[in-house]
């Protein structure tokens, strides 16, 4: 199973939870954004209750949870926005 590298960015509450601005992930080809969220839930207790991912952005554009990642993608989970 070939692997790919993806940059995962953390913002706002997720940065606090992860304790980092970003992580580099090595993922199996065909991995979806939603699957990355499930890995995060397994890593951080405080995310255990969040069975559904928040909004998802791939390469600075909103994407759906079933979006398949590709080599070099920049992935971000977008907590509920509160601008203004």
């Amino acid at each position, binding site marked *: 199973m070939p692997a790919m590298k993806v940059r995962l*960015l953390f*913002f*706002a*509450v997720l*940065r*606090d939870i992860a304790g980092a601005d970003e992580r580099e992930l090595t993922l199996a080809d065909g991995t979806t954004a939603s699957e990355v969220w499930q890995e995060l839930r397994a890593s951080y207790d405080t995310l255990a209750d*969040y069975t559904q991912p*928040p909004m998802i*952005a791939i390469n*600075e*554009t*909103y994407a759906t949870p079933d979006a398949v990642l590709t080599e070099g993608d920049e992935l*971000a989970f*977008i*907590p*509920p*926005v*509160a*601008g*203004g």
Partner: protein
Amino acid sequence: MSYLTDAPIDAQALVRRVIRRSDGAYVLFEGVVRNHHDGKAVESIFYDAYRPMAEKEMEKIVREVEAQFPDTAVAVVHRLGQLVVGDSSIAIAAASPHRAEAFAACRTIIDRVKETVPIWKKERGPDGEEWLGWQGRSGRGGVDG
């Protein structure tokens, strides 16, 4: 025209960037850090953003609203970082030959910014601090102001 800034907002400068000699009205909206939210005291708010994406989303809103109101020119600036009560977090200027379009364009922009632009705020008060919209993740996402 839209941008992010880490400095205090100069709203009248924003107005000067949109208004033309054919405009009979402008509407300026500013969101301001207030001293309360949901019954709790607020002292300051830290604004965080996914900067390049927030810039893209703001510019997309500006383009779409200018297409929706063809005679109307709009500009948006959102401030990031640590703001205290009374500081403006966002300014939106909409200039148009007619007032109805200026009001509608300005209102549409603030409503849409609150829906889709990846900006977040952490409120700080005497009771501690909290990222808005996360706890329970329902009904807290679009904060007034």
